[in-house]
Protein backbone atom coordinates (compact mmCIF):
# COMPACT_ATOMS: atom_id res chain seq x y z
CA UNK A 1 0.00 0.00 0.00
CA UNK A 2 1.65 3.26 -1.08
CA UNK A 3 0.98 6.61 0.60
CA UNK A 4 -1.84 7.58 -1.77
CA UNK A 5 -3.66 4.34 -1.09
CA UNK A 6 -3.04 4.69 2.63
CA UNK A 7 -4.52 8.21 2.55
CA UNK A 8 -7.59 7.00 0.67
CA UNK A 9 -7.91 4.10 3.12
CA UNK A 10 -7.94 6.53 6.07
CA UNK A 11 -10.49 8.78 4.35
CA UNK A 12 -12.70 5.78 3.60
CA UNK A 13 -12.54 4.73 7.26
CA UNK A 14 -13.44 8.28 8.30
CA UNK A 15 -16.49 8.12 6.05
CA UNK A 16 -17.36 4.64 7.34
CA UNK A 17 -17.37 5.83 10.96
CA UNK A 18 -19.84 8.67 10.37
CA UNK A 19 -23.06 8.56 12.35
CA UNK A 20 -25.40 5.98 10.77
CA UNK A 21 -28.64 7.16 9.16
CA UNK A 22 -30.66 4.60 11.12
CA UNK A 23 -29.11 2.40 13.81
CA UNK A 24 -31.87 -0.19 13.49
CA UNK A 25 -30.88 -0.99 9.90
CA UNK A 26 -27.19 -1.00 10.79
CA UNK A 27 -27.76 -3.33 13.75
CA UNK A 28 -29.48 -5.82 11.45
CA UNK A 29 -26.50 -5.63 9.08
CA UNK A 30 -24.06 -6.02 12.00
CA UNK A 31 -25.78 -9.21 13.20
CA UNK A 32 -25.83 -10.60 9.66
CA UNK A 33 -22.10 -9.96 9.36
CA UNK A 34 -21.44 -11.44 12.79
CA UNK A 35 -23.19 -14.59 11.68
CA UNK A 36 -21.22 -14.66 8.43
CA UNK A 37 -17.84 -13.97 10.02
CA UNK A 38 -18.33 -15.82 13.30
CA UNK A 39 -20.68 -18.74 12.78
CA UNK A 40 -19.67 -19.12 9.14
CA UNK A 41 -15.99 -19.55 10.00
CA UNK A 42 -16.40 -21.70 13.09
CA UNK A 43 -16.04 -25.06 11.31
CA UNK A 44 -12.91 -24.09 9.41
CA UNK A 45 -11.24 -22.54 12.46
CA UNK A 46 -12.13 -25.58 14.58
CA UNK A 47 -10.61 -28.07 12.15
CA UNK A 48 -7.45 -26.04 11.57
CA UNK A 49 -6.89 -25.30 15.28
CA UNK A 50 -7.38 -28.90 16.39
CA UNK A 51 -4.93 -30.26 13.83
CA UNK A 52 -2.37 -27.53 14.44
CA UNK A 53 -2.50 -28.28 18.19
CA UNK A 54 -2.08 -32.02 17.56
CA UNK A 55 0.82 -31.54 15.15
CA UNK A 56 2.48 -29.05 17.50
CA UNK A 57 2.47 -31.61 20.31
CA UNK A 58 4.00 -34.29 18.12
CA UNK A 59 6.72 -31.94 16.85
CA UNK A 60 7.60 -30.64 20.31
CA UNK A 61 7.77 -34.23 21.59
CA UNK A 62 9.98 -35.16 18.63
CA UNK A 63 12.41 -32.32 19.41
CA UNK A 64 12.53 -32.89 23.19
CA UNK A 65 14.71 -35.98 23.23
CA UNK A 66 16.69 -35.16 26.36
CA UNK A 67 15.95 -37.07 29.55
CA UNK A 68 16.73 -33.90 31.53
CA UNK A 69 13.66 -32.09 30.12
CA UNK A 70 10.37 -33.12 31.68
CA UNK A 71 7.58 -34.06 29.30
CA UNK A 72 5.28 -31.57 30.98
CA UNK A 73 7.14 -28.97 28.91
CA UNK A 74 5.26 -30.25 25.85
CA UNK A 75 1.98 -29.05 27.31
CA UNK A 76 3.28 -25.65 28.41
CA UNK A 77 5.07 -24.95 25.10
CA UNK A 78 1.96 -25.95 23.17
CA UNK A 79 -0.22 -23.76 25.42
CA UNK A 80 1.92 -20.63 25.08
CA UNK A 81 2.51 -21.09 21.34
CA UNK A 82 -1.19 -21.60 20.72
CA UNK A 83 -2.30 -18.65 22.83
CA UNK A 84 0.35 -16.16 21.82
CA UNK A 85 0.94 -16.89 18.18
CA UNK A 86 -0.71 -19.80 16.44
CA UNK A 87 -4.34 -19.20 17.33
CA UNK A 88 -4.43 -15.43 16.65
CA UNK A 89 -2.11 -15.33 13.65
CA UNK A 90 -2.98 -18.56 11.81
CA UNK A 91 -6.69 -17.92 12.41
CA UNK A 92 -6.32 -14.38 11.10
CA UNK A 93 -4.48 -15.48 7.97
CA UNK A 94 -7.06 -18.17 7.28
CA UNK A 95 -9.88 -15.67 7.88
CA UNK A 96 -8.18 -13.12 5.63
CA UNK A 97 -8.46 -15.67 2.84
CA UNK A 98 -12.01 -16.72 3.57
CA UNK A 99 -13.66 -13.50 4.74
CA UNK A 100 -11.36 -10.96 3.12
CA UNK A 101 -11.89 -12.27 -0.38
CA UNK A 102 -15.65 -12.48 0.21
CA UNK A 103 -15.84 -8.88 1.46
CA UNK A 104 -13.70 -7.56 -1.37
CA UNK A 105 -15.69 -9.46 -4.02
CA UNK A 106 -19.03 -8.44 -2.55
CA UNK A 107 -18.23 -4.72 -2.35
CA UNK A 108 -16.31 -4.77 -5.65
CA UNK A 109 -19.25 -6.37 -7.46
CA UNK A 110 -21.57 -3.81 -5.91
CA UNK A 111 -19.26 -1.10 -7.24
CA UNK A 112 -19.09 -2.36 -10.83
CA UNK A 113 -22.83 -3.06 -10.98
CA UNK A 114 -23.58 0.49 -9.76
CA UNK A 115 -25.19 -0.69 -6.52
CA UNK A 116 -22.90 1.63 -4.54
CA UNK A 117 -23.87 4.51 -6.82
CA UNK A 118 -27.51 3.61 -6.14
CA UNK A 119 -26.89 3.86 -2.38
CA UNK A 120 -25.21 7.25 -2.77
CA UNK A 121 -27.99 8.59 -4.99
CA UNK A 122 -30.51 7.58 -2.32
CA UNK A 123 -28.59 9.79 0.12
CA UNK A 124 -27.09 6.88 2.05
CA UNK A 125 -23.52 6.99 3.31
CA UNK A 126 -22.29 3.97 1.32
CA UNK A 127 -19.01 3.45 3.24
CA UNK A 128 -20.95 3.54 6.51
CA UNK A 129 -23.68 1.18 5.41
CA UNK A 130 -21.37 -1.31 3.68
CA UNK A 131 -18.17 -1.20 5.73
CA UNK A 132 -19.02 -0.23 9.32
CA UNK A 133 -21.11 -3.37 10.07
CA UNK A 134 -18.32 -5.56 8.70
CA UNK A 135 -15.66 -3.86 10.83
CA UNK A 136 -17.79 -4.08 14.00
CA UNK A 137 -18.52 -7.75 13.27
CA UNK A 138 -14.81 -8.37 12.60
CA UNK A 139 -13.49 -6.80 15.79
CA UNK A 140 -16.07 -8.65 17.89
CA UNK A 141 -16.15 -12.07 16.23
CA UNK A 142 -12.46 -12.59 15.45
CA UNK A 143 -11.53 -12.45 19.17
CA UNK A 144 -14.32 -14.97 19.87
CA UNK A 145 -12.98 -17.24 17.14
CA UNK A 146 -9.45 -16.87 18.49
CA UNK A 147 -10.60 -17.90 21.99
CA UNK A 148 -12.29 -20.97 20.51
CA UNK A 149 -9.16 -21.64 18.47
CA UNK A 150 -6.97 -21.50 21.61
CA UNK A 151 -9.17 -24.01 23.42
CA UNK A 152 -9.31 -26.36 20.44
CA UNK A 153 -5.61 -26.08 19.72
CA UNK A 154 -4.75 -27.06 23.29
CA UNK A 155 -7.38 -29.81 23.16
CA UNK A 156 -5.97 -30.99 19.84
CA UNK A 157 -2.54 -31.13 21.45
CA UNK A 158 -3.94 -33.31 24.21
CA UNK A 159 -5.60 -35.67 21.72
CA UNK A 160 -2.56 -35.82 19.44
CA UNK A 161 -0.17 -36.39 22.31
CA UNK A 162 -2.18 -39.02 24.16
CA UNK A 163 -3.35 -40.95 21.08
CA UNK A 164 0.18 -41.20 19.71
CA UNK A 165 1.72 -41.90 23.09
CA UNK A 166 4.08 -38.91 22.78
CA UNK A 167 2.95 -37.63 26.17
CA UNK A 168 0.66 -38.96 28.86
CA UNK A 169 -2.61 -37.23 29.73
CA UNK A 170 -1.39 -36.40 33.23
CA UNK A 171 1.89 -34.90 32.00
CA UNK A 172 0.14 -32.84 29.34
CA UNK A 173 -2.45 -31.47 31.79
CA UNK A 174 0.24 -30.73 34.34
CA UNK A 175 2.16 -28.89 31.60
CA UNK A 176 -0.72 -26.70 30.49
CA UNK A 177 -1.62 -25.75 34.08
CA UNK A 178 1.89 -24.97 35.29
CA UNK A 179 3.22 -21.39 35.30
CA UNK A 180 0.31 -20.03 33.31
CA UNK A 181 0.56 -16.29 32.73
CA UNK A 182 -2.95 -14.85 32.09
CA UNK A 183 -1.43 -11.81 30.37
CA UNK A 184 -0.78 -14.00 27.31
CA UNK A 185 -4.55 -14.14 26.83
CA UNK A 186 -4.67 -10.33 26.85
CA UNK A 187 -1.92 -10.16 24.23
CA UNK A 188 -3.77 -12.69 22.06
CA UNK A 189 -7.04 -10.76 22.32
CA UNK A 190 -5.35 -7.46 21.44
CA UNK A 191 -3.89 -9.18 18.38
CA UNK A 192 -7.29 -10.66 17.51
CA UNK A 193 -8.92 -7.23 17.77
CA UNK A 194 -6.31 -5.65 15.48
CA UNK A 195 -6.47 -8.57 13.03
CA UNK A 196 -10.28 -8.40 12.99
CA UNK A 197 -10.04 -4.76 11.98
CA UNK A 198 -7.49 -5.51 9.22
CA UNK A 199 -9.38 -8.54 7.86
CA UNK A 200 -12.52 -6.46 7.30
CA UNK A 201 -11.28 -2.95 6.52
CA UNK A 202 -8.49 -3.71 4.02
CA UNK A 203 -10.64 -5.92 1.73
CA UNK A 204 -13.50 -3.40 2.04
CA UNK A 205 -11.13 -0.67 0.82
CA UNK A 206 -9.89 -2.81 -2.08
CA UNK A 207 -13.45 -3.61 -3.13
CA UNK A 208 -14.82 -0.11 -2.68
CA UNK A 209 -12.46 1.47 -5.20
CA UNK A 210 -12.61 -1.20 -7.91
CA UNK A 211 -12.91 0.15 -11.43
CA UNK A 212 -13.77 -2.05 -14.38
CA UNK A 213 -15.45 -5.44 -14.42
CA UNK A 214 -15.18 -9.04 -13.30
CA UNK A 215 -11.43 -9.26 -13.90
CA UNK A 216 -10.72 -6.18 -11.77
CA UNK A 217 -12.99 -7.50 -8.99
CA UNK A 218 -10.99 -10.75 -8.97
CA UNK A 219 -7.70 -8.82 -8.93
CA UNK A 220 -8.94 -6.65 -6.06
CA UNK A 221 -9.92 -9.78 -4.17
CA UNK A 222 -6.45 -11.27 -4.58
CA UNK A 223 -4.81 -7.96 -3.61
CA UNK A 224 -7.07 -7.74 -0.56
CA UNK A 225 -5.90 -11.13 0.73
CA UNK A 226 -2.22 -10.39 0.06
CA UNK A 227 -2.29 -6.92 1.67
CA UNK A 228 -4.32 -8.24 4.62
CA UNK A 229 -1.84 -11.08 5.25
CA UNK A 230 1.18 -8.77 5.11
CA UNK A 231 -0.57 -6.24 7.36
CA UNK A 232 -1.46 -9.01 9.84
CA UNK A 233 2.15 -10.19 10.04
CA UNK A 234 3.48 -6.63 10.42
CA UNK A 235 0.93 -5.82 13.14
CA UNK A 236 1.65 -9.16 14.81
CA UNK A 237 5.28 -8.11 15.20
CA UNK A 238 4.37 -4.59 16.40
CA UNK A 239 1.83 -5.77 18.98
CA UNK A 240 4.18 -8.47 20.26
CA UNK A 241 7.02 -5.96 20.54
CA UNK A 242 4.81 -3.46 22.37
CA UNK A 243 3.13 -5.83 24.81
CA UNK A 244 5.75 -8.47 25.66
Amino acid at each position, binding site marked *: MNFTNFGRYILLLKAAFKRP*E*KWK*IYMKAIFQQMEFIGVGSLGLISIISTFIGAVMTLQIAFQLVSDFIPKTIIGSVNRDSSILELSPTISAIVLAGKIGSAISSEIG*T*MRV*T*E*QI*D*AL*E*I*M*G*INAPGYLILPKIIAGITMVPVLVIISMVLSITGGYLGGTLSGAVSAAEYIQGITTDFNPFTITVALVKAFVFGFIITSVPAYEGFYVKGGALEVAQASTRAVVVSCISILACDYIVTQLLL
Partner: protein
Amino acid sequence: MIEIKDIHKSFGENEVLKGISGKFEPGITNLIIGGSGSGKTTLLKCMIGLHHPEQGSVAYDGRDFTQLNTEERIEIRKEIGMLFQGSALFDSMTVEENIMFPLNMFTEQSRSEKLDRVNFCLERVNLEGKNKLFPAELSGGMKKRVGIARAIAMNPKYLFCDEPNSGLDPKTSIVIDELIKEITEEYNTTTIVVTHDMNSVMGIGDYIMFLHQGKKFWEGSNKEIAKTDIEELNDFVFASRFMKAAKDKF
Protein backbone atom coordinates in the same frame (compact mmCIF):
# COMPACT_ATOMS: atom_id res chain seq x y z
CA MET B 1 -37.04 22.23 -12.54
CA ILE B 2 -33.36 21.50 -12.94
CA GLU B 3 -31.14 24.14 -14.48
CA ILE B 4 -27.52 23.53 -15.46
CA LYS B 5 -25.15 26.34 -16.35
CA ASP B 6 -21.79 26.13 -18.08
CA ILE B 7 -20.83 22.64 -16.90
CA HIS B 8 -17.20 21.71 -17.53
CA LYS B 9 -15.74 18.34 -16.68
CA SER B 10 -12.37 16.81 -17.58
CA PHE B 11 -10.69 13.51 -16.89
CA GLY B 12 -6.98 14.26 -16.98
CA GLU B 13 -6.24 15.93 -20.32
CA ASN B 14 -9.54 14.81 -21.79
CA GLU B 15 -12.18 17.54 -21.55
CA VAL B 16 -15.46 15.64 -21.71
CA LEU B 17 -17.96 18.44 -21.07
CA LYS B 18 -17.23 21.84 -22.55
CA GLY B 19 -19.67 24.30 -21.03
CA ILE B 20 -23.14 22.79 -21.19
CA SER B 21 -26.20 24.77 -20.13
CA GLY B 22 -29.89 23.95 -20.23
CA LYS B 23 -33.21 23.75 -18.39
CA PHE B 24 -35.20 20.61 -17.67
CA GLU B 25 -38.85 21.29 -16.89
CA PRO B 26 -41.11 19.13 -14.68
CA GLY B 27 -44.00 17.12 -16.12
CA ILE B 28 -42.30 16.47 -19.45
CA THR B 29 -39.79 13.81 -20.50
CA ASN B 30 -36.39 15.41 -21.00
CA LEU B 31 -33.93 13.42 -23.08
CA ILE B 32 -30.18 13.80 -23.33
CA ILE B 33 -28.95 12.11 -26.49
CA GLY B 34 -25.62 11.78 -28.23
CA GLY B 35 -23.17 9.25 -29.59
CA SER B 36 -20.83 7.15 -27.49
CA GLY B 37 -18.28 9.39 -25.77
CA SER B 38 -20.33 12.54 -26.32
CA GLY B 39 -20.50 13.12 -22.56
CA LYS B 40 -24.15 12.37 -21.80
CA THR B 41 -23.56 9.92 -18.95
CA THR B 42 -20.84 12.21 -17.54
CA LEU B 43 -23.33 15.10 -17.63
CA LEU B 44 -25.91 12.97 -15.82
CA LYS B 45 -23.35 11.98 -13.17
CA CYS B 46 -22.37 15.64 -12.72
CA MET B 47 -26.03 16.49 -12.21
CA ILE B 48 -26.56 13.89 -9.50
CA GLY B 49 -23.23 14.53 -7.81
CA LEU B 50 -21.40 11.30 -8.67
CA HIS B 51 -18.91 13.48 -10.59
CA HIS B 52 -17.85 16.94 -9.51
CA PRO B 53 -17.77 19.47 -12.36
CA GLU B 54 -14.75 21.80 -12.42
CA GLN B 55 -16.96 24.70 -13.38
CA GLY B 56 -20.66 25.48 -13.59
CA SER B 57 -23.77 24.97 -11.50
CA VAL B 58 -26.61 22.46 -11.17
CA ALA B 59 -29.70 24.00 -9.59
CA TYR B 60 -32.58 21.88 -8.27
CA ASP B 61 -35.48 24.35 -8.06
CA GLY B 62 -32.99 27.12 -7.32
CA ARG B 63 -30.78 25.10 -4.94
CA ASP B 64 -27.27 24.95 -6.40
CA PHE B 65 -26.16 21.36 -5.79
CA THR B 66 -22.49 22.17 -6.43
CA GLN B 67 -22.42 24.72 -3.60
CA LEU B 68 -24.18 22.65 -0.94
CA ASN B 69 -22.53 20.83 1.96
CA THR B 70 -22.82 17.06 2.38
CA GLU B 71 -25.92 17.17 4.62
CA GLU B 72 -27.76 19.52 2.25
CA ARG B 73 -26.85 17.32 -0.70
CA ILE B 74 -28.22 14.30 1.12
CA GLU B 75 -31.53 16.15 1.59
CA ILE B 76 -31.76 16.78 -2.17
CA ARG B 77 -30.77 13.21 -2.93
CA LYS B 78 -33.76 12.01 -0.92
CA GLU B 79 -35.87 13.78 -3.57
CA ILE B 80 -34.10 11.97 -6.41
CA GLY B 81 -35.06 8.65 -7.96
CA MET B 82 -32.64 6.98 -10.31
CA LEU B 83 -32.96 4.12 -12.77
CA PHE B 84 -29.53 2.75 -13.63
CA GLN B 85 -28.43 1.22 -16.91
CA GLY B 86 -27.96 -2.18 -15.26
CA SER B 87 -30.86 -1.60 -12.83
CA ALA B 88 -28.42 -1.71 -9.85
CA LEU B 89 -30.79 -3.77 -7.71
CA PHE B 90 -29.28 -5.07 -4.49
CA ASP B 91 -28.52 -8.74 -5.21
CA SER B 92 -28.89 -9.91 -1.64
CA MET B 93 -32.39 -8.47 -1.27
CA THR B 94 -35.75 -9.55 -2.67
CA VAL B 95 -37.79 -7.29 -4.92
CA GLU B 96 -39.82 -6.23 -1.89
CA GLU B 97 -36.73 -5.46 0.21
CA ASN B 98 -35.18 -3.51 -2.67
CA ILE B 99 -38.19 -1.23 -2.97
CA MET B 100 -38.63 -0.98 0.78
CA PHE B 101 -34.97 -0.10 1.36
CA PRO B 102 -35.24 3.71 0.97
CA LEU B 103 -38.46 3.66 3.00
CA ASN B 104 -36.71 1.76 5.81
CA MET B 105 -33.82 4.20 5.75
CA PHE B 106 -35.64 7.49 5.62
CA THR B 107 -39.18 7.09 6.90
CA GLU B 108 -40.77 6.16 10.20
CA GLN B 109 -43.70 4.36 8.57
CA SER B 110 -45.02 1.12 10.04
CA ARG B 111 -44.24 -2.15 8.26
CA SER B 112 -47.78 -2.41 6.88
CA GLU B 113 -47.63 1.14 5.50
CA LYS B 114 -44.33 0.40 3.83
CA LEU B 115 -45.69 -2.85 2.44
CA ASP B 116 -48.68 -0.99 1.02
CA ARG B 117 -46.31 1.44 -0.69
CA VAL B 118 -44.22 -1.42 -2.08
CA ASN B 119 -47.31 -3.14 -3.45
CA PHE B 120 -48.53 0.13 -4.94
CA CYS B 121 -45.19 0.69 -6.68
CA LEU B 122 -45.10 -2.89 -7.96
CA GLU B 123 -48.65 -2.55 -9.24
CA ARG B 124 -47.64 0.71 -10.95
CA VAL B 125 -44.96 -1.13 -12.93
CA ASN B 126 -47.18 -4.18 -13.57
CA LEU B 127 -45.24 -6.56 -11.33
CA GLU B 128 -47.87 -7.48 -8.75
CA GLY B 129 -47.02 -10.54 -6.69
CA LYS B 130 -43.31 -10.56 -7.52
CA ASN B 131 -42.38 -9.38 -4.00
CA LYS B 132 -40.39 -12.40 -2.92
CA LEU B 133 -38.29 -12.92 -6.04
CA PHE B 134 -34.58 -12.10 -6.06
CA PRO B 135 -33.03 -9.96 -8.82
CA ALA B 136 -31.28 -13.05 -10.24
CA GLU B 137 -34.70 -14.57 -10.91
CA LEU B 138 -35.92 -11.62 -13.00
CA SER B 139 -35.62 -10.89 -16.73
CA GLY B 140 -33.87 -7.71 -17.92
CA GLY B 141 -37.18 -5.90 -18.48
CA MET B 142 -38.51 -6.93 -15.07
CA LYS B 143 -35.30 -5.69 -13.41
CA LYS B 144 -35.77 -2.30 -15.09
CA ARG B 145 -39.34 -2.16 -13.87
CA VAL B 146 -38.28 -3.04 -10.32
CA GLY B 147 -35.63 -0.31 -10.68
CA ILE B 148 -38.39 2.14 -11.61
CA ALA B 149 -40.53 0.94 -8.69
CA ARG B 150 -37.61 1.52 -6.30
CA ALA B 151 -36.95 4.91 -7.85
CA ILE B 152 -40.53 6.08 -7.31
CA ALA B 153 -40.94 4.56 -3.83
CA MET B 154 -40.08 7.84 -2.11
CA ASN B 155 -42.24 9.95 -4.45
CA PRO B 156 -39.24 11.65 -6.05
CA LYS B 157 -39.39 15.17 -7.42
CA TYR B 158 -36.59 14.36 -9.83
CA LEU B 159 -36.25 11.13 -11.81
CA PHE B 160 -33.06 10.22 -13.68
CA CYS B 161 -32.84 7.31 -16.08
CA ASP B 162 -29.51 6.17 -17.52
CA GLU B 163 -30.02 4.20 -20.75
CA PRO B 164 -33.29 2.63 -19.58
CA ASN B 165 -33.66 0.61 -22.80
CA SER B 166 -30.20 -0.87 -23.11
CA GLY B 167 -30.29 -4.63 -23.52
CA LEU B 168 -34.06 -4.78 -23.90
CA ASP B 169 -36.12 -6.01 -26.85
CA PRO B 170 -38.05 -3.32 -28.77
CA LYS B 171 -41.42 -4.23 -27.26
CA THR B 172 -40.15 -4.12 -23.67
CA SER B 173 -38.33 -0.86 -24.46
CA ILE B 174 -41.62 0.74 -25.45
CA VAL B 175 -43.24 -0.52 -22.22
CA ILE B 176 -40.41 1.07 -20.17
CA ASP B 177 -40.58 4.33 -22.16
CA GLU B 178 -44.32 4.60 -21.70
CA LEU B 179 -43.99 3.86 -18.00
CA ILE B 180 -41.43 6.64 -17.57
CA LYS B 181 -43.64 9.07 -19.47
CA GLU B 182 -46.76 8.13 -17.50
CA ILE B 183 -44.98 8.51 -14.16
CA THR B 184 -43.52 11.86 -15.23
CA GLU B 185 -46.91 13.25 -16.17
CA GLU B 186 -48.78 11.66 -13.27
CA TYR B 187 -46.44 12.92 -10.52
CA ASN B 188 -45.13 16.02 -12.33
CA THR B 189 -41.55 14.88 -11.82
CA THR B 190 -38.58 16.47 -13.51
CA THR B 191 -37.47 13.49 -15.56
CA ILE B 192 -34.17 13.29 -17.40
CA VAL B 193 -33.45 10.27 -19.58
CA VAL B 194 -30.04 9.61 -21.07
CA THR B 195 -30.47 7.47 -24.16
CA HIS B 196 -29.33 6.71 -27.66
CA ASP B 197 -32.41 4.70 -28.47
CA MET B 198 -34.14 6.34 -31.42
CA ASN B 199 -37.52 4.82 -30.60
CA SER B 200 -37.36 6.65 -27.26
CA VAL B 201 -36.32 9.86 -28.96
CA MET B 202 -39.23 9.79 -31.34
CA GLY B 203 -41.67 8.30 -28.84
CA ILE B 204 -41.25 10.22 -25.58
CA GLY B 205 -38.83 13.10 -26.33
CA ASP B 206 -40.80 16.15 -25.18
CA TYR B 207 -37.51 17.99 -24.79
CA ILE B 208 -34.29 16.71 -26.33
CA MET B 209 -30.75 17.94 -25.75
CA PHE B 210 -28.26 16.64 -28.29
CA LEU B 211 -24.62 16.48 -27.18
CA HIS B 212 -21.77 16.24 -29.62
CA GLN B 213 -18.09 16.19 -28.65
CA GLY B 214 -18.87 17.50 -25.18
CA LYS B 215 -21.02 20.44 -26.31
CA LYS B 216 -24.73 21.06 -26.55
CA PHE B 217 -25.28 20.96 -30.30
CA TRP B 218 -29.03 21.17 -30.52
CA GLU B 219 -32.19 21.27 -28.39
CA GLY B 220 -35.84 20.88 -29.27
CA SER B 221 -38.67 18.36 -29.28
CA ASN B 222 -39.21 15.06 -31.09
CA LYS B 223 -41.45 16.87 -33.56
CA GLU B 224 -38.71 19.33 -34.42
CA ILE B 225 -35.93 16.78 -34.67
CA ALA B 226 -37.27 15.31 -37.91
CA LYS B 227 -37.17 18.71 -39.57
CA THR B 228 -33.66 19.70 -38.59
CA ASP B 229 -30.95 20.00 -41.20
CA ILE B 230 -28.01 19.94 -38.78
CA GLU B 231 -25.65 17.39 -40.24
CA GLU B 232 -24.23 16.00 -36.98
CA LEU B 233 -27.72 15.51 -35.54
CA ASN B 234 -29.05 13.89 -38.70
CA ASP B 235 -26.03 11.60 -38.86
CA PHE B 236 -26.78 10.47 -35.32
CA VAL B 237 -30.58 10.24 -35.29
CA PHE B 238 -31.10 9.00 -38.82
CA ALA B 239 -28.05 6.79 -39.07
CA SER B 240 -29.96 3.66 -40.11
CA ARG B 241 -31.53 3.22 -43.55
CA PHE B 242 -34.89 2.65 -41.94
CA MET B 243 -34.74 5.94 -40.02
CA LYS B 244 -33.56 7.77 -43.15
CA ALA B 245 -36.53 6.41 -45.10
CA ALA B 246 -38.85 7.36 -42.26
CA LYS B 247 -37.45 10.90 -42.24
CA ASP B 248 -37.90 11.23 -46.00
CA LYS B 249 -41.55 10.19 -45.67
CA PHE B 250 -42.00 12.56 -42.73
